[in-house]
């Protein structure tokens, strides 16, 4: 398996609290992505990064921020969690963006109560 780890794997949090999810890779891939997966919506891109400190928005970026201070880590922050952000979050990495295959983490199941 590609060296990609998401943490935590499960989290329950209360509405209005900040939450940070971490994606860590050991592959030195340039591109990193955050997705959310909900029934009936497939995978939707939240944010992605094309290098250290270089990020861009995806389809559903409202309510989320990201940071990438080093190649191996890509953090997803929910500044003030809402129940609509209850979802399964996946991180993916790719050496050449959409031009090559991506490798996915195991996912983080987030529940906002």
């Amino acid at each position, binding site marked *: 398996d590609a060296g990609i780890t998401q943490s935590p794997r499960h989290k329950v949090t209360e509405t209005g609290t900040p939450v940070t999810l971490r994606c860590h890779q050991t592959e030195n891939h340039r591109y990193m992505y955050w997705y959310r997966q909900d029934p009936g919506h*497939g995978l939707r891109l939240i944010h*992605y990064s094309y290098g250290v400190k270089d990020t861009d928005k995806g389809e559903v970026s409202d309510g989320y921020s990201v940071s990438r201070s080093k190649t191996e880590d890509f953090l997803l922050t929910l500044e003030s969690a809402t129940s609509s952000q209850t979802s399964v979050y996946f991180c993916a990495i790719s050496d050449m*963006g959409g031009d*090559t*295959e991506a490798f996915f983490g195991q*996912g983080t199941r987030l529940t906002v109560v």
Partner: protein
Amino acid sequence: SQQGEEDPQALSIQEGENATMNCSYKTSINNLQWYRQNSGRGLVHLILIRSNEREKHSGRLRVTLDTSKKSSSLLITASRAADTASYFCATPPLIQGAQKLVFGQGTRLTINP
């Protein structure tokens, strides 16, 4: 709206039969990728077909791409119970430098013994 859409949303067949899934997309791409997701797991890359290719094979998988119709199909021959999973196409939009890896809603395939 999402760049790619899979059809059908769900497919149930008998073991040994062939399964065909389709993907349509909206904007120009330089490649199209298919992924598989087993229940509760991250996505796994299956095959990548470039825009100048019309057909590609990998084991029991056959992928076609018709750029004039903006569509692709994934054929799984001689299906097995282990093929039960959700299948997604990824269509990196060329207009955005193919950096974004955008997925559709997926096809849920069930292989009945």
